[in-house]
């Protein structure tokens, strides 16, 4: 189950995979996939199950089928490290897609720009669409609304009986929306929101607004 919210009169659907679909732009926003992380570990002798790397593509295919986006925009850290065989999987996958591809370069993106461009993926440091600024690192701007990733946000909820739970989330402040990490072999960083923040937690296959229960 998704949640659709309005920011500055534009409509955004938050998907439990961690992606956001921007209706007006027909654009899918995805942050911190960290492709190739599994392969990177394996290359250095740590036997992380190979199958784990296929999950990202499965999730991407579900999203593409659901929204049929005109553009897929990765908000940085698309690849975890240097070139390895995951690159081949990615190029294969991209060739079968009808969408356009954009990569906002993140701190992990050390694969040369021209390789992306040969694939038809356009690489930017940041991108402005209407009054929305797309970046990898969250930034503050006086006028613009910022969509970003990098943090891998999560929150902690607590309840009666000393119960608590930590979940990945979409983290929205007045002028920012930070997306959760899309990759399945990533972690999360627990943020403590203030009363003005909006938090949409991912619980299994649902996106639930939890900032109203505080």
């Amino acid at each position, binding site marked *: 189950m998704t949640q659709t919210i309005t920011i500055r009169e534009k409509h955004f659907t938050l998907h439990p995979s961690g992606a956001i679909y921007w209706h007006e732009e027909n654009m899918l926003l995805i942050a911190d996939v960290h492709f190739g*992380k599994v*392969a*990177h*570990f*394996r*290359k*250095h*002798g*740590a*036997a*992380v*199950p*190979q*199958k*784990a790397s296929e*999950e990202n593509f499965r999730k991407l295919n579900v999203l593409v089928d659901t929204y049929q986006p005109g553009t897929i925009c990765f908000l940085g850290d698309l690849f*975890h*490290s240097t070139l*390895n*065989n995951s690159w*081949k*999987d990615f190029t294969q996958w991209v060739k079968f897609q009808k969408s356009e591809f954009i990569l906002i370069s993140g701190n*992990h993106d050390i694969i040369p720009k021209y390789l992306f461009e040969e694939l038809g993926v356009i690489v930017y440091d940041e991108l402005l669409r209407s009054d929305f600024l797309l970046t990898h690192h969250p930034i503050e701007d006086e006028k613009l609304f910022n969509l970003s990733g990098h943090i891998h946000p999560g*929150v*902690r*909820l*607590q*309840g*009666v*009986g*000393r*119960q*608590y*739970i930590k*979940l990945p989330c979409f983290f929205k402040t007045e002028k920012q929306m930070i997306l959760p990490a899309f990759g*399945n*072999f*990533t*972690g999360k960083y627990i943020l*403590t*929101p*203030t*009363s003005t923040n909006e*938090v949409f*937690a991912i*619980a*299994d296959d*649902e996106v*639930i607004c*939890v*900032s109203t*229960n*505080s």
Partner: protein
Amino acid sequence: MKKTELIKLASSWFQKKNWNEFPFQKKTWNAFLDGKHGLLNAPTGSGKTYALWVPIVLQYIKDNPDYKTKHAKGLKAIWITPLRALSVEIQQSAQRFADELETGLTIGIRTGDTPQSERAKQKRNMPDLLITTPESLMLLLASKGYEKVFGNLTAIVVDEWHELLGSKRGVQMELALSRLKTISPNLRIWGISATIGNLEEAQNVLLGMDPEFRKNSVLIKSKQKKKIKVISIIPKKMETFPWRGHLGLHLLDDIIPILKDSKTTIIFTNTRSQCEIWFQKILAKYPEFAGEIAMHHGSIAKETRLWVEQAIRNESLKAVVATSSLDLGVDFAPVETIIQIGGPKGIAKFLQRAGRSNHRPGEPSVIYFLPTHALELVEASALKRAVKEEVMEDRIPYLLSFDVLIQYLVTLSVSNGFIPKELFPEIKSTFCYQGITEDQWKWCLNFITMGSQSLQAYDEYKRVEVTLEGVFKVESKRIAMMHRLSIGTIVSDAMLQVKYVSGGFIGTIEEWFIGKLKPGDTFVFAGRTLELVRLRNMAAQVRRSNKKSATVVSFMGGRLPLSSQMSKILREELQSEAEYKRNTPELKALSELFERQELESIVPKQDEFLIETFKTREGYHALFYPFEGRFVHEAMSGLLAYRISLLLPITFSLAYNDYGFELLSDQPLDVQQVIDNNLFSSEYLFDDLQKSLNSTELARRKFRDVAVISGMVFQGYPNKMIKTKHLQSSSQLLFDVFRDYEPDNLLYQQAFRETFEHQLEEGRLRMALERIATQTIIWKQCEKPTPFSFPIITDRLREKLSSEKLKDRIKKMTLQLLK
């Protein structure tokens, strides 16, 4: 020289020193010279070093009749010690004997502290005796040509074997021994162990499954016994003594006269943070002790620790506050008195600590027991009985630790490489891997060469490669280096160094603790108040601070569970209370607490099983009192919570201590329903336990060790600036990935098996459930928390279990906001 002549040589040396040789020493010399293997059961401070070092030297004399003029080069014996701190002491004793017999034998130390230059020198020219740790021995096996170094070994002695036995370092030792047996044909294997319940098993684990070795071995017990006197410190005013807590500071004033009366006192605490706090508080309240009291725990810089140890020997200290870091080895003659703060949780540990005092023969060792909360007095009473009745615990050896095996296989691949067909019989001859199947063996080989069970297209997995001749080898220098670095990693959280900004090393601290601090925050560490300036290159840079209050450094771990032997005695003590016998001073002192307990609830008799329920602000509490020790309670609480969660959607937070456990929920628990559904049944125990394990975090925590040892989590380069860029991952993430994509992975499954074998103790749990089945269940619905419940419900380290949908739980929860 004949055997009798050789022994005479040693005896006359003893006489010259005016020392008595003990029968156990002579027995050991004889057995060793007869070519036997064995286990020596002797306490610290009894002359055990000479029991085994003497015959090693005598054997050398026998083999080299012109030993006084001609020195035969090469390594002759290895002495394994679990603690680096003990090595200097052993070296000095050994050197003394070797020199005074004019043998020219040299004794070297090789541990993590040994400088690189010294190690390189050793490699070119090994000393005759090498004192080392299990990790450093493994590192030697990771260097090329090791078989030449070890080829002429006559003996390996594993000191403090009881300490290694119940740990994975013990498994490392088993594997190393299995290799040495093959490459050193004249090897004798000897262990030295303090008294434990399963000495014979300890001997079998050390020698392995090889019948030749077992047949040709002896178990020698020293008859020396120490008398031990246990004195409880009973609070003068029981009314004000707390029902819970683990620090024990209420009784601080009571230990001062003890300190003043005795030459030197060691105050044993159970955790490093408790140690820090006691040290601070004694000084704050009795400043006259300044300079006369010190602190000793594993996180303090080695130089400081050595200084403290030396100061104890010169009698320049009145008292030392310590943790288990002073449990082992080193003899401190001037120590007259021991104070144990809080329950030591095990009899063997308690005795070992008591034995640290008073080495004058004939006189008893005195140990004071200081309870940290009221119910611990029952424990004191139980301990006294255990000491009197000489009850001893077992150390349970590990079985089929695939993580250690994988580490070992890579170790051999880094040095000479190995051929599986040749190595398998060695592995199978160890106690740990006696039950390994061909399939499991193949699995391990596939794991290190292909990263899983079949080679997949495009896979770039790289660790061990197979040469055309079928030799398993590591070719990559980088992988070899990473592996060498990871051999020594003691499994713990990432550790950071604490240093002054101006330089100067203070000690090490767990990363998660520093992670909670911001620059400018102050904390107490190593007895000093420090301000965090910045974090840089795996070091926390600090400066001294004058701020008054500060967080005391806390450390994970250190919570030891009550052993089954101990819990049985504890139960009996309590039951004697239910029958109003009150036959020890400790129980008498507790009269009032027991009366309060009876006001709200009951003190259960032998045939009664007590369950209490009550409600507080925190939610609905249900408490169960099996008195079976922490591990059994951990398992039983998970089991019961799981079984209840099948009846209705419910979420529990679980807490346990040595007396009982709690299921806390946001909805009331109908205990009648628990009884009616026979939820304490021992039927389907294994199945239900397994499922409860899946829903709690226990196995996940065990997996951390497994992931580190098997090399899946790389902890980084100690003291080096090289970044392990992009290779950081938590074992938590890995655990999830294995659960989702490779649940049949042997290492993933090992985490569950270890939880079963070493933590949950299914056997003990089953017996406890069977006992409960014969008891009358008494359900008390109380108005408020009872004295028995107090230490449990205030425990903050909790496990959780839920059968509610995530979405339903979230609805009832609130977001924690920044204030």
